[in-house]
Each structure stands twice: as C-alpha cells, then as structure tokens.
C-alpha cells in the first residue's frame, strides 16, 4: 500500500464514522424540519404529506383559508423576539466591554484567573442561575426588599414577568458569549497607538472613538452575533422570567410541538429563526474572512 493511500485510509478511518453520524442525526433532521414546514397539518395533530405554503402564510400574511389564517400575533411575537435579542446584545455589550478592558490590563496570572471566573458560571446549571434571578426579582424578592428598606418604593415593584426581567436574564446567561470575543479583541489592542493618540492631543473620548472602537470592532461584531443567535431562539429564559406575559418565538415553537400539536407550523416558525441565524453566520464568516485578508 502506498503512503498516500495509507494516509487516505487513515483519514477515512478518522472522519468516516463521525461524519456519517452527523449527516444522519444532525443534517437529516434539519432537512426533514424544512420539509415539514411545507406540509399540511393533519386535523388531529400529525401531518398530511401534501405541499402547503400556508404555514409561512399564517406568519407572514398571505394565508386566508378556513383553517389557516394569517394572525398578526405571530409576526408580533417574532418581532418582539428580535427586539429582545437585540436589546440583550446591547446590554451585554455595555456590561462586558468595560470589564473586558479592565481584565485585559491585569497582570498575567491574575488575568487568567479573572477570565476563569467569568467563564465559570457558564458551567453552572442554567436552571439554577435563572432560579436565582426569580428569587431576586419576585415581588417578595431581594431587590424589592432592598428598595423598600431604602424607602425608594412603598409597594413591591413588578420586576418578574416583564421585558426587563427577560433581557436581564438573557444578558446574565450569555455574558461569557459576549465577553470572550470582546476580550480577545481588546487584548490585541496596541497600547502604543493609544499613547500616540493622546500625545497628538486627542481627548480620551476621541481616542476611544477613533482608535479603540475601530480596533475592537471585530470582537464587538463576533460577540454580538453569537449572543444574538441563542437569545433569539431562547425559550427557557422567557418561560422562567417572562411567564405568560413575555412570549418569545421559542415559546411559540414549544407550544406548537407540545400542546397545539401543529408540527408543520412549528417547523415554519423554527425555519424563520434558522433563516436569521444563517444570515448572521454568513455575515460573520465574510467579516472574519475580510479581517483575515487585511
């Protein structure tokens, strides 16, 4: 057996099984979901193998039959999900950026430990972390106890089951997603450039806007995209902290599968999320490539 041939056999040995596994159990399911989104829901749950574009029509506006009607509420929930995910991105950015900056200026040993501390909560059970926020935000919770003790409010403020709670919860959960790309961009920042900018008479704000911000932009974009994507499709955070009042598209999808039993419609909703995800991933890929070239 020639060397090239042996190498090829080794490569196939390594790649073969995992590739087949992922093709069957990752790509096939996604394709089937895509197919499902174009099928007709059966009357009593289940599905009829008949092409239909009305699942999308119900969300986007052209469905107008007896059983399949357009209802603006779906679009409204989708738009709200986009809005909440965007606000989560902005909040995480504001929360993480100065912290990443601070940590990047530490001594190496302390710095590694600080990064370890930032990533550690990611490994703490998601439910535990969200439950903690329920304890803080509920009417009898710590936040209200504190506010009333200080005298800022006489009656408990309703924090739980609001947009605020959902954004806060998602920000909390996704901090490592934003922090790590930001940090790796800020770490690469050339301090000499900052000094040069200051020496040339730029104010701190000008230096930040003209030097720091453009230099860390790749980190900002990458962090924003990988925070936005899981935030958009999230359904655990809105279920725990948003209750029935703040529904996101994830909740809607869950309902279609577990209570409404309209799988084709649920698939169409999921495809809507996937479309946004794919667009963002392609965008990120192109930006990363452009950055690599320059």
């Amino acid at each position: 057996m020639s060397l090239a041939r042996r190498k090829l056999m080794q490569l196939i040995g390594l790649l073969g099984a995992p590739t087949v596994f992922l093709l069957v159990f990752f790509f096939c399911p996604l394709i089937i979901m895509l197919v499902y989104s174009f099928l007709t829901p059966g009357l009593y749950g289940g599905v009829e193998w008949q092409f239909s574009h009305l699942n999308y029509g119900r969300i986007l506006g052209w469905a107008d039959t007896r059983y399949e009607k357009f209802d603006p509420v779906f679009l409204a929930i989708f738009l709200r999900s986009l809005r909440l995910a965007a606000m989560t991105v902005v909040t995480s950015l504001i929360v993480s950026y100065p912290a990443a900056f601070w940590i990047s200026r530490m001594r190496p040993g302390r710095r590694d430990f600080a990064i370890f501390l930032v990533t550690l909560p990611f490994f703490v059970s998601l439910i535990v972390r969200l439950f903690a926020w329920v304890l803080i935000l509920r009417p009898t919770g710590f936040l209200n106890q504190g506010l009333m003790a200080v005298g800022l409010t006489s009656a408990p403020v309703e924090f739980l089951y609001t947009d605020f709670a959902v954004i806060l919860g998602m920000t909390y959960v996704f901090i490592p997603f934003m922090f790590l790309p930001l940090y790796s961009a800020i770490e690469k920042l050339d301090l000499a450039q900052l000094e040069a900018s200051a020496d040339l008479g730029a104010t701190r704000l000008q230096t930040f806007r003209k030097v720091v911000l453009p230099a860390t932009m790749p980190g900002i974009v990458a962090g924003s995209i990988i925070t936005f994507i899981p935030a958009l499709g999230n359904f655990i955070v809105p279920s725990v902290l948003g209750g029935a009042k703040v529904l996101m598209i994830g909740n809607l999808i869950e309902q279609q599968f577990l209570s409404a039993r309209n799988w084709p419609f649920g698939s169409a909703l999921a495809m809507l999320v996937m479309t946004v995800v794919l667009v963002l991933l392609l965008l990120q890929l192109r930006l990363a490539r452009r950055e690599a070239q320059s």
Partner: protein
Amino acid sequence: MILRRLLSLYGLLFFVFIYAPILLVVIYSFNANTLNMMIWNGFTLDWYRQIFGFETTITDSATYVDSSAQLYAAVRTSLTVALSTSVFSTVCGTALALAVARYRFRLAGFYRTLMMVPMIMPDIVLGIALLIFFITIGMNLSLMTIIVGQSTFLISYVFVTVSARLAEFDTSLEEASADLGATPAQTFRKVTLPGIAPGILGGWLLSFIISMDDLVITYFIAGTGNTTLPIHIWGMLRRGIKPEINAIATLMLLFTLVIAAVGLYFRSRRQK
C-alpha cells in the same frame, strides 16, 4: 487615575453581578424559614436532610410532593446519559479534530466552519428537528434518543477543545518520533496521544457537564418516563417555588463547579 479607579470599581461590580445571584441561592438553602423563604430566620440543614431522606421538622406543605426516590432516579438518568454521551462525543470529536489538524484535505476548512454550527444554533431548533426526525423514522423516544441527540452538538465542543490543544502541540515532536523509526501507530500512542490528553480530558469533562445540564434538547426528545435532573427541576419550578430547590441547586452547583474547575484547569494548562 480616576478613570482607572472607576474602571476597577466597575470591574468589581461586574463580578458581583455574576456571582451574587448564585451566592444568594447557596446562602438561602440554609434558611430555616419554612413559611417565607425570602426572609432569613436562622440556620438549618433541614432542606438537605429532606433531600437525603432524613428526619426533618419540615411540614409536608413546605416541600414538593416528589419523593427523594424520584430525585435520585432523575440523577441516575442524568448520569447515565451524560456518561454515554460524553464518551461517545469525545471519541468522535477527537477523531475529527485529529483529521482536520493532521491531514491535508480539501474539506478541512469546511469541517472547521461546520463544527461551529451545532454550538451556536438555537437549541430549540435542534430539539424539534430531532423530535420530528425520530418520530418520522419510527424511533421510540428513549434514553437512546437523548444520547444520540445530545451527541450531535457535544461533538462540536470536544472538537473545539481538542483542536485548540492540537494547534499548540508541537508537530516536530511527532516528526522526531517518526525519524527515530517509530511506526505511525507508535508515534500516535507514545507522542501524540499523551500530548493532547489534557485537551481530550477537558473536552470530555466539558461535554459531560453540558450534557448533565442540557434542558432544551432533552426536553423535546426524552419522551415520557425518562426524566433527567434538569427536566425534574423544571417540573418542580413549574409547580411553584419552594426552598427545597435552593438546596438541590446548591448541590448541583457544587457538583458542576468541581468538574468545571478540573476541566478548565486542564484547558488552561496548554498555555504552559
């Protein structure tokens, strides 16, 4: 100078924000107040006694109806799933990482990009896609479907962890080994494998933890009768909030922290 002070202050607040909620859960898991869990009125270990089935002074109305046996069963299910999934994902993820890092082939870049997708895809999409898939091909929802389903995205985590280690591992060591007459199999066993072992171990622990914690994907493909720990707690939360959860949460916290600390330790060792 002032700016620097402000930044430090902000940084400390940042860590308070990250850790205070978790700490509150831990502290209040020792709260003796059975009527209003939000008000501290003394130290107790009763909630832990309750979990482990010891005698307590807690009245039944203050606790969930679930028996400890149900909780243990959920823990057992979670451990079974996590062990199988993490071992399988580690083998697959490591094989893929080795292939991409050590062989030149046209699809290498494609694989590298593709392995990112399962990690950041919203988990609900993967969850329902798997549900539809299993039902369509007639596979009954069981422990097996959970293991298969979780592996689809955990392979990626292992892949990334092992790849990072491989990227920093000096290939000249492998070349030296080959020059000294070792067969490829020997080189792999004696040089490559020990070299990337910390990465493999880290990837395994990482996939183990994530599997233990996975709620969304498992939620859709578990079927009835296969309750993992996160699903069990999810069910409890849906029936209202009782202090018992604090204690369960604290125990879970302890468990994950130990594993995560070991895992992150191995991952950080690559810098040395």
